[in-house]
C-alpha cells in the first residue's frame, strides 16, 4: 500500500464509520421498525404510515408545522438581509468582526438557555411586561408568551445566524463598483436592490433558507417551551410517540415522513427559484 493510499484510508475510515454507525445504521433500523406493528410481531405493515393520514391531528399538525417553518424562514430572510448587508457593505471590517462576535454569543450558550432567556423577557411578569406596566402603558400584562408569537420569536432567534452568514458570504463577493455603476446609470436604490443585490446574493439566500427551514421544522425546544397549546409542532408529536405512548414504530414512521416531506419542500423551492443545489453549496 502506498503512502498516499494509507493517508486516504486514515482519513476516510473515521468518516465512513461515523456515517455508517451513527447515521446510516440507525436510520435503517428506524426505517425497518417504521414498517412493523407496535405489538412487536415480526410482520410487514403500513399502518404506521396510514395512521398519519387517517388521524386528522397528525397531518394537520404537520401541514401547520410546514407552513410555519416556511413563514419563519421568510421572516428570517427579511430580518437577516439588512443585517448581513449592514455588516458587509456599510460598516468597516473591524467593526463588522466585532458585531459578528456579538451575533455568535447566543450560539455559545446553547439553544435551551437562550429560549429560557426569552421566557424571562416575554413572561407575564417578565422584563417587557413589567417595564410597560412601570411606564403606565398597560395595567394587565400583554399575552406575549406561550402562543404562536413567542414561538416564532424563539425560532427566528435561534435560526437567524444561519441565514445571516450565507448571505454575508454572497454579498462579500458583490463588487461595490457594480452598485455604483447601477446608480450611475440612473437606477434608484430599490431598483439596485431588486435587480443587482438580490440576484447576486440568491445562492446565499437559498443556502440560508435551506438551513433555516431544516433547523426550524426539526426544532423541538422553541415550540415546546415558548409555544402555546394551539401551536403544536410536528417534532412534539414524534417526541410523544417515542416517550409518552412508547410507540416507537409510529414515531419512526413520523420521523421518516418529516425527513421526506421537508426534503421535498426544499426540492420544490429550489425548482421554483431556479437554483441548483451544487451551485448553492459553492457559497
Amino acid at each position, binding site marked *: 500500500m502506498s503512502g498516499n493510499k494509507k493517508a486516504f484510508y486514515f482519513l476516510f475510515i473515521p468518516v465512513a464509520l461515523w456515517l455508517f454507525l451513527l447515521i446510516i445504521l440507525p436510520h435503517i433500523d428506524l426505517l425497518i421498525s417504521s414498517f412493523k406493528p407496535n405489538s412487536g410481531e415480526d410482520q410487514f405493515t403500513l399502518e404506521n404510515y396510514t395512521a398519519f393520514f387517517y388521524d386528522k391531528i397528525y397531518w394537520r399538525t404537520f401541514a401547520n408545522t410546514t407552513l410555519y417553518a416556511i413563514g419563519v424562514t421568510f421572516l428570517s430572510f427579511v430580518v437577516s438581509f439588512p443585517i448581513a448587508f449592514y455588516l458587509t457593505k456599510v460598516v468597516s471590517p473591524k467593526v463588522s468582526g466585532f458585531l459578528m462576535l456579538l451575533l455568535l454569543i447566543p450560539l455559545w450558550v446553547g439553544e435551551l438557555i437562550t429560549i429560557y432567556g426569552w421566557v424571562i423577557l416575554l413572561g407575564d411578569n417578565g422584563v417587557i411586561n413589567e417595564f410597560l406596566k412601570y411606564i403606565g402603558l398597560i395595567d394587565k400584562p400583554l399575552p406575549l408568551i406561550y402562543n404562536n408569537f413567542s414561538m416564532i420569536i424563539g425560532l427566528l432567534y435561534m435560526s437567524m445566524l444561519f441565514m445571516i452568514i450565507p448571505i454575508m458570504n454572497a454579498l462579500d463577493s458583490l*463588487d461595490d*463598483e*457594480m452598485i*455604483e*455603476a*447601477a*446608480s*450611475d*446609470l*440612473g*437606477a*434608484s436604490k430599490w*431598483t439596485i436592490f431588486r*435587480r*443587482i443585490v438580490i*440576484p*447576486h446574493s440568491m445562492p446565499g439566500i437559498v443556502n440560508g433558507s435551506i438551513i433555516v427551514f431544516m433547523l426550524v421544522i426539526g426544532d423541538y425546544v422553541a415550540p415546546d417551551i415558548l409555544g402555546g397549546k394551539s401551536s403544536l409542532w410536528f417534532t412534539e408529536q414524534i417526541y410523544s410517540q417515542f416517550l409518552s405512548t412508547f410507540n416507537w414504530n409510529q414515531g419512526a414512521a413520523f420521523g421518516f415522513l418529516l425527513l421526506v416531506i421537508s426534503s421535498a419542500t426544499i426540492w420544490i423551492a429550489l425548482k421554483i427559484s431556479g437554483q441548483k443545489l451544487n451551485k448553492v453549496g459553492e457559497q
Partner: protein
Amino acid sequence: MSHILKLKGVSKYFGDFIAAKDINLSVREGEFISILGPSGCGKTTLLRMIAGFLEESEGDIIIHGKSMKGVSPENRPVNIVFQSLALFPMMNVYENVAFGLKRKKISKSEIKDRVLDMLHRVGLDGFEKKKISELSGGQKQRVAIARSLVMKPSILLLDEPLSALDRKLREHMKVELKELQREIGTTFIYITHDQSEALVMSDRVAVMNRGIIEQLDTPYNLYNNPSTGFVAGFVGDNNRFEVSSRDGEEVVTKKGWKIRKPNLDFDPTVMYIRPEAFIVNPEGEILDSEIFEAQINTILFDGANTKILVTPEGREEILIALPQNAKFQSLKEGDGVKIAVAHNNIKCYKE
C-alpha cells in the same frame, strides 16, 4: 470653443490627507483628455467627484454651465466606465446595455433600437444574448463602454478601463478607443497611470502628483517641454541626474559632470536628458552641444527600442536610445563611443 466641464479650485480632504488640492481644469466639448499620475495621486478621487460619488471639500464642478453641487450621480450628465468594468453578471449583454435606458421613460422599441445601434458601433453585433461570463476581456470592455455611451452622456469618464487587459490587447484597445471617441464625438475623461495610454489617445493630458495638476498640455509638449521635474521623470523614459551645485554658467552633477547652462534664473536640483536626445558617434560639425567619450556597459536589445547603457569616465551612467540604423549594428559591449547632446535638450528643474 465652449467648455463642457469646468473645475474651479476643487479640493478634497480626507481628514488631514489632501487627496486633491485646488484643481482648475477646463475641458472642451468633444475633447479626449487624460488625467495621468501614479497611484495615490488623487486622479480617481477627482474622477469620483466629477461623477458625483464624492463631494468636493472646496471649489465647484460645472457641467454645461451648471454647478453640480448637490446633484446625485444618477442625475449628472456623465457616465463612468469602471476599472473593474462592473458589468452585471446576472444579465446578458443586451440587458446590460439596456439597463440605464430602462430606468428612463423610453419606449421598448426605442430602447431596442438604441441598444442594437450601440452594440453595432462597438462591433458586438449578434452578441445580445451572450452571458457576460462568455465574453473575452476585450468584448467585456466594449460592453462596458457601450453601456455608458448608450446613455448619451455629455462626458464619459473612464477609470483605467484597460488595466485588466493583457499587453497586446491593451495596445489594440488604445487605438480602438481613440477611433471610437473620434467617431462618436463624446467628451472623454480618461484616468490612467500608464503614460503611453495617455500620450497615444489624448488631445490633452493633465499630469497629477500628490493631489495637484503639475502640467496640463498636449502630449507633444508634455513629452518635449515638461514644466516640472516630476513630469519629466514620469512621462516617458528619462535620464535623471542630481545636481549638486551651480558654478556660474555651469551646473555640476553629483559625480562632477559640468554642463554649460547659461541664462538659468534659479538653482536647479535635478537635470533630465531624454535617452533619444543623445547622438552616438556624431558626424560633421556639431554646434552648441556637450560632447564626450564613453564606454558601452550593456546593450539592452529590444528590437526597435534597443538602448545602451554607457558610463563616461568618472560620471553617472546614461541610458541612450539607439537609432534603428545599420550603422550601430556592430556596436559591442566594451566599445568606446563618442556621444553628443544638444544643450537645449538638457532640462533643469528645481524640486
